[in-house]
């Protein structure tokens, strides 16, 4: 009994098996690798304003502006099972309102074909650094760190934190000038 249907079925089943095995091998060969890279991050020109904000309970919130320099080489991270990186800058701090505050200030998608070495100077954040209240003024311990999400062709989606993080004290007076 080797009619056309049997043959087609066997061929399809075998193809699927081979593709599943190759995908699994691709995943297993990369899952135990170390994906951490060192970064060089500096944050400067921090200014804090107080603005009206509808998304907080007090309707008033602290807005911080800043700029940063970032130097990082992602060459080591890319292997055959990395489709893209999602790189993001996080500001992390605690406050009277909240035990944990995390705000993403900037992000960038790095694909295989892109330049994977970053040397960014005087970058302004993409997103507002807006607190959930008025806790940024005089804050002594806001931590800035680069993290990235390694997106594979197939397999585990890994979140990696770069090795160094910096902590910067914030200004003690509000800025009233319009310019950042």
């Amino acid at each position, binding site marked *: 009994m080797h009619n056309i249907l049997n043959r087609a079925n066997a061929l399809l089943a075998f193809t699927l098996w081979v593709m599943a095995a190759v995908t699994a091998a691709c995943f297993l060969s990369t899952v135990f690798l170390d994906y951490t890279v060192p970064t060089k991050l500096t944050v400067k020109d921090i200014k804090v304003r107080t603005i009206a904000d509808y998304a907080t309970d007090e309707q008033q919130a602290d807005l911080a502006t800043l700029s940063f320099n970032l130097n990082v080489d992602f060459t080591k991270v890319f292997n055959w099972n990395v489709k893209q990186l999602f790189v993001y800058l996080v500001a992390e701090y605690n406050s009277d309102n909240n035990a944990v505050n995390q705000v993403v200030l900037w992000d960038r*998608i790095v694909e295989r074909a892109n330049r994977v070495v970053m040397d960014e100077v005087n970058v302004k954040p993409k997103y507002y650094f807006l607190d959930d209240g008025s806790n940024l003024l005089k804050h002594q311990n806001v931590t800035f760190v680069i993290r990235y999400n390694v997106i594979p062709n197939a397999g585990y989606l890994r979140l990696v934190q770069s090795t160094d993080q910096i902590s910067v004290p914030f200004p003690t007076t509000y800025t009233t000038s319009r310019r950042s």
Partner: protein
Amino acid sequence: MKFLPDIAMFNEIRQMNIRQLFYQCLNFAMVVSSALMIWKGMMVITGSDSPVVVVLSGSMEPAFYRGDLLLLTNDHEDPVRVGDITVFKVEGREIPIVHRVIKVHEKSADNTKILTKGDNNQVDDRGLYAPGQLWLSRSDVVGRTKGLLPYVGMVTIIMNDYPKLKYAVLAFLGLFVLLHKEN
């Protein structure tokens, strides 16, 4: 099984005795119940009501394309943090959304303000939330993406786009399992 019409398709089953026929039916039930057990087992292990979702939109491109299959977990011990790709449900929307967390304000594990955004979208998700909703809470999040299998979900998308094909495939598979004799 002499009552079945004399068609080539029924040849194998016409040769069976009653015992073999029962065996075929049990075999069919076995396939169905194994699939159900795998699904329910995954729900228990991952803690998520829907441990597997198919990406339907391009809002997370180039990370996820339409038709990619995502594996989710929903561990309540492990708090939601920025960078996590969450799957969340919004009141009044049938289909859950897969987007990345960009802001977390956590008072306690159960009292957390979460804001999300699609990597490929220009603005955050406040426009997608229910009217007047400014933040997600932990209970809106049904899972977090931990694994990715490309293209596998294409089958589901095609089946949903052409419902007739779905019934045709199901009928064909069902008949094949019932009528085909195991050697």
